């Protein structure tokens, strides 16, 4: 065990700082920036619907949700019931579907469905962007710098941090404040997000955020459905939600409410 109260001293070559600590940090920052630009370049914007029927399929669900959320603020009972019946019937008999004839068939295999394939490729690309640089850098550090103790933290820590700060250095007696090169890599990996935010702007791709297209039409681009999900199931679910909905209207008694809140003195 380390002797309590006695400062552990290890003689380090100051070159360790210039040749290990500094390069690792710089390389980590540069890969983060590189990854940001690679993601931006390889990112394909979500495909807009190519036919009117497809667009309808995408938005019909939103219409049901809108009705459910906003009907109390707008509609009286009569028009609410009419809309509810229309939407429920439409959801039930599949008239909002892109292809009503395909109804009830199992959802297309995402491997064969070109649209699903594209989405999967997008995800794959995103994951690759994260995985490949990490693997490369970690093996680089393992090959060249494993086993170095490169810095000493200026504050004491409990023994639990040993596994976090001293990975790659199998020394039981070493004080927790010493940080190994591999751990410095991990600390950088986790802790550089704010540095990227500073360099690249808050919505950078280095922290895996999606880049939005500047001039895209958000309403047309939006796709509430994930690839591989069966829209028919979602529609049936929404129909059920609509059916159990109880109508009330905040317009009932709005006259008295306005008078009470805005004009208590008018009698």
């Amino acid at each position, binding site marked *: 065990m380390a002797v309590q109260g006695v400062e552990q001293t290890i003689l380090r070559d100051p070159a360790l700082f210039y040749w290990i600590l500094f390069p690792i940090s710089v390389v980590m920052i540069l890969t983060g920036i590189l990854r940001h630009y690679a993601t931006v370049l390889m990112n394909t914007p979500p495909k807009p619907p190519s036919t009117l029927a*497809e667009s309808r399929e995408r938005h019909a669900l939103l219409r049901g949700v809108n009705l459910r959320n906003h009907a109390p603020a707008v509609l009286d009972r009569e028009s609410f019931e009419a809309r509810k019946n229309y939407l429920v019937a439409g959801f039930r008999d599949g008239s909002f579907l892109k292809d009503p004839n395909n109804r009830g068939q199992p959802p297309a295999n995402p491997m064969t469905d070109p649209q699903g394939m594209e989405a999967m490729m997008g995800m794959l690309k995103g994951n690759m962007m994260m995985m490949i640089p990490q693997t490369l850098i970690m093996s680089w550090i393992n090959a060249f710098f494993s086993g170095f103790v490169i810095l000493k933290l200026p504050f004491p820590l409990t023994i639990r941090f040993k596994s976090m700060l001293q990975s790659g250095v199998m020394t039981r007696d070493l004080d927790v404040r010493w940080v190994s090169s591999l751990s410095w890599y991990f600390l950088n990996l986790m802790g550089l997000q704010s540095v990227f935010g500073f360099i690249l702007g808050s919505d950078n791709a280095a922290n895996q955020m999606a880049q939005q297209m500047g001039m895209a039409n958000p309403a047309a681009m939006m796709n509430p459905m994930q690839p591989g999900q069966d829209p028919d199931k979602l529609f049936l679910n929404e129909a059920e939600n609509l059916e159990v909905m109880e109508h009330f209207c905040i317009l009932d008694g*709005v006259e008295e409410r306005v008078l009470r809140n805005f004009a208590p003195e008018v009698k």
Partner: protein
Amino acid sequence: MGASADIRDINGSDLISALHLAQQAPVILGPNPMNASSASSTGTAEEYGRIEQLLLACLRTGDDQSAQACLDRLSHRFGPSNERVMGLRGLYQEATAKDRAALEKCLQEYEKILSENPVNVPIMKRRVALLRSLDRPADAIFALIQLLEALPTDAEAWCELADLYQTQGLSSQAIFSLEEALLIAPNSWNIHARLGELLYVSSSSGEDDASRLAGKSVQHFCRSIELCDDYLRGFYGLALATSRMIENEHAGERPSDPPVPSRITLDRLKRFALQRLGEIVQSRSVDDQHWASSRSELIAAKELLNRLAQAQ
């Protein structure tokens, strides 16, 4: 920069602020409008939004040259095949068209674009607007319904459809469309007030459930006042609708009918609306320059106040 502040409070239907904005076109576009490459490197989404606003303002005020410069810059940045840029170019061509034949040519161009990509929303909207300005409302309504079939969550299109229906005298369809727009944007007080106006108009056209429609119009005016404290149009409509209901003795026919408020409530609402209307007119008349854009509304409100004061 003064220009950016001006753009933020530019009002769509306000010709005066559009004119102010268009006069700043040379400043915003820079000394050399043709040199688009320098702008494309620094532009953010906000900046291009401003250029788009400027394009619309220039077209409205007849500054076609600056409009062309704006359009060039946008299509230089986003490419001529961007849907929104295509829509803006269509708008520019419509605005600069000399005669009806040129407009027909625009229409053919839109149809060609739509046959290639049927879901080009900006072009679809332009086509509806063009059909409307070519005096073909039935075709415009048909095209708009087609658009809404595919995009039922577009509040702007529902409002336009309501407007089209209203010009054709189809009140109940117009009311339905506006309700649909409100379902998408339930807190927009201007649509509430507009819906109240439509209900008021259709209640005065002598249908059998006039009292129910009038009651609903009062409700929507009340709601728009609730959402926006000093909304002139809301108070104007409320005063008009309540005084009509009191005149026609709609109130209290069937107290069980929920949308028809009692006579006392109507009286109080009317007095409240008139009082607030008077206050608004007074305060805005003092600060004339600031409210210059809504002067016509103010005049109408004054006129209503005089008329109702004489009737009493």
